[in-house]
């Protein structure tokens, strides 16, 4: 999705901070566990060793695991609000870690490597039970879908995201993709190199056409673009009904998009 030697220019720290305050950018490469809303049970041959429950969930005492898949499902429905339940056999975890490290690392970049590891987990490895089934998402999107979509675009092409807050640009992001990968990450400041007046842009979803025209001229033909209100974008990231929510926001004048709803 993102080329390893991606060029990053005109990315001010403030803009970057705004972006990462919304999007879980770092998790793509960071393997350290966060504190997700996941109930985890570790056992060895059925005997429970450790239980990790997120705050606020009262988990019944469990000492023995006989049917991990069934137990995971039961707990998931018994404790509404959990993202998932995972029941893990200790030796199987070691085996999973071993398999990940035996993957062919030489031709991989970090993104490929992480995806291969996720695929291993999705293949229902023996001794590791997940309910719902393991499926790795990145900011609410299936990473594989995003990669496929990006790879299917014209070569080259550009993408634009503008988030507006209180009538001022809060976040802008321009991506240039070529040969199926993102090769340039920048912001609207980049257009100033070509004497495009960018101060205060975008101020509202109505600026979409003008911004897209400049990007088309100086970066690449625009494949998709979105300018929306901050609250709309925050909601879109986690929404299960992104298309519907975006349509509604557009109808309310809170979003304007190109190439996303067609």
């Amino acid at each position, binding site marked *: 999705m993102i080329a390893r030697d991606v060029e990053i220019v005109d990315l001010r720290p403030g803009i970057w*901070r705004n972006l990462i305050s919304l999007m879980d950018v770092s998790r793509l490469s960071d*393997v350290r566990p966060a504190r997700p809303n996941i109930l985890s049970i570790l056992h060895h041959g059925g005997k429970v060793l*450790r239980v990790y429950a997120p705050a606020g969930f009262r988990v019944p005492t469990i000492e023995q695991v006989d049917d991990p898949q069934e137990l995971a499902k039961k707990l998931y429905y018994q404790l509404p609000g959990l993202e998932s339940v995972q029941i893990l056999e200790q030796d199987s975890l070691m085996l999973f870690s071993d398999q990940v490290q035996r993957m062919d*690392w030489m031709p991989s970049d970090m993104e490929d490597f992480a995806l291969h590891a996720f695929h291993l987990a999705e293949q229902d490895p023996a001794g590791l039970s997940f309910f719902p089934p*393991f499926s790795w998402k990145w900011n609410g999107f299936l990473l594989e879908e995003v990669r496929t979509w990006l790879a299917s675009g014209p070569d080259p092409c550009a993408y634009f995201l503008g988030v507006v807050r209180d009538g001022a640009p809060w976040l802008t992001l321009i991506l240039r993709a070529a040969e199926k990968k993102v090769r340039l990450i920048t912001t609207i400041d980049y257009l100033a190199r070509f004497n495009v007046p960018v101060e205060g842009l975008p101020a509202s979803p109505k600026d979409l056409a003008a911004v897209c025209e400049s990007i088309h001229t100086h970066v690449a033909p625009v494949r998709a673009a979105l300018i929306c209100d901050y609250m709309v974008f925050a909601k879109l990231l986690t929404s299960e009904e992104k298309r519907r929510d975006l349509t509604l926001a557009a109808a309310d004048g809170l979003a304007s998009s190109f190439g996303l709803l067609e």
Partner: protein
Amino acid sequence: MAIRVDSNGLYLDGRRIPLYSGSVHYWRYSPNTWPTLLERIKELGFEIIQSPVPWGLHESGPGIFDFGEKNPQKGLPQFLDLCTKAGILAILRPGPFVGEDMPFGGFPLRVIRNSAVWALTSTGAPALSTRYATPFAIPSYASERFLHEVGKFLDALAPVLVSHQYPDGPVILCQMNKESAFMGRTQAYDLDYCPESITLFRNFLSEKYGAIENLNTVYATKYSAYSEISAPKRCEATVQRDLPVYLDWVEYKEYLIRRFYQRLGGMFRDRGISVPLSIDGPSIFSTPMDSIGLQKSLEITLTGMEVDPNSSDYPALARQIRYLTGTSKLPFVSKFGSGNSWFAPRVNTPHEEEFAILSAVMHGMTAVNFHMLAEGDRWVGAPISRDGAFREEFADLFRHLQPFFAKYGVWESKKNCRTLVVLSYELERYHLAVSTMNYAYLGLIRIPAIFSEVSIPLGFQIDPARQSIYEEGSWIQEACRFLENVQVEYNLSDSHQELDEMAKYDMVFLPTADFMDLREQEKFLEFADRGGHLVFGPGLPTLDGRMNPGSVLKNAIQIPGTQTRGAGKITYLPTFDAAKELITADMPNVVLLDNPNLRLTIRGGSSNLIFLANPTGVNQRSMMISSWPLRGVWNAPEETQTGSVTTEIGPHTVQVWEVLK
């Protein structure tokens, strides 16, 4: 030697110069840009630059090296000549590991694709690093093949480096490697199980125990030779006497690192590289990175520390710097983030960067290299952009800082500190040893890290696993909190600290549990004998380091409280309930605050400076109670004030006041 490093700083021909540098990676830029970049660096007040020399970049084919002969961008000699011309000194980091967003961490793929150099996990898989730009197999510290390859690189590099060493050239220091602790994979049973490492483990045991019978006595085993011993792959102790093998495995990792750096240092020396050597150490405390042990080595002058400043986590920054100050000959932050990688979850604003830098200074940082002063690839927030232009909001900070540091002699000053908190190596080793499995990569599927820990009821009065500095509520954390609350500044060190160094402090706090090496106990008692005040707790050791009955401390004091010992005192302090009685009138800072949310330290030198930090996110107000006149010199009112001074200080801000004696 023309160059010398000691606790007072860096000396060139007897002249002290501040070790204050910024990174510029020559190979990232066109040679046409080099003069501009060096000029910009100087304009920001720097006279020293630092650059990695990536092995994989310069090795253009098997055994074929390019230092600018073919590709001018790799022209290290030309770059160093330009430094000389510009009057700039240089620190080089020839690796072998450099990181820096380089493919395979800067190693040539040719070298690390060879399974003979790999560190192996307990299941025999290559230990892969995924912390850097591309995944790669971590080389083993034990691999002779790897060292042989490193030697070939150093053979090629040495002529360039030797001819550019001070005083003939600008190179004044060589930093070896980066992140010197298994590339962050420090879990006890994660790696290194490669055959050469297992052989070294057996050698280590043989050196430690001598005759195999001695080991059998400690392990309760019946080995006839060291070659029969296997490395433990998880902690399966069920009684206290089972522990030594696991603790030995953790201690062996320290030995492995130390041995590697001694070998590496020797390789530099053998090739005529005579400038001081340093280690760009990781941001971890104690085992497996034996900072003090490494500095005792003849070849290694300095161990630095990496700091990624996060203004919202002031306690972590302060703790790192206190440890650096308490353990390093010269408190040198070898990599102080100036901006951050684009993939990092946080990039500081200039205000936050200022807060982090001054917070580090106030707790003892005395030498520093700002990482990516000139912007690297995929980097955000550096003061100098890739084309050599200033990023003004960040450049301004450095333009103001350097004259301030120079005017008040900050780098020549030292933090006033008479109290030391010591990490117990044995407790930290135990914390690592009591672990069941390697959890590398389990984070990908979001497995809680606690799943690698075990809670074994081994019958200790005090659970040693809960006494690590990493454990919330541990005695050592309580000691730190207590000292901060009573406004006593302290340094952190570890139990490998030598007695003569400890004797520079009035009071030492030491965490203890049921077991402790008897010689270590004697060393701490001698500190009291010499006139110091030893405070220890929460346990009273009754076992030695091999879990045999025996105690030195218990023979000296049996019940909680304080008693005279030689020229000093010892206090057995199970809890901090009555700890306030330990604080004598001369201990707290000579300037006191009435706002517990603020922190204050004093650095003394040609000027006496008070550093006052507000680590909170809101404005704070405090009275500074001082018997001396004070004048603000940074973020504080400039008029001289006497008596008690009331000051307001903004969120995440450091004020500096000069004491006018």
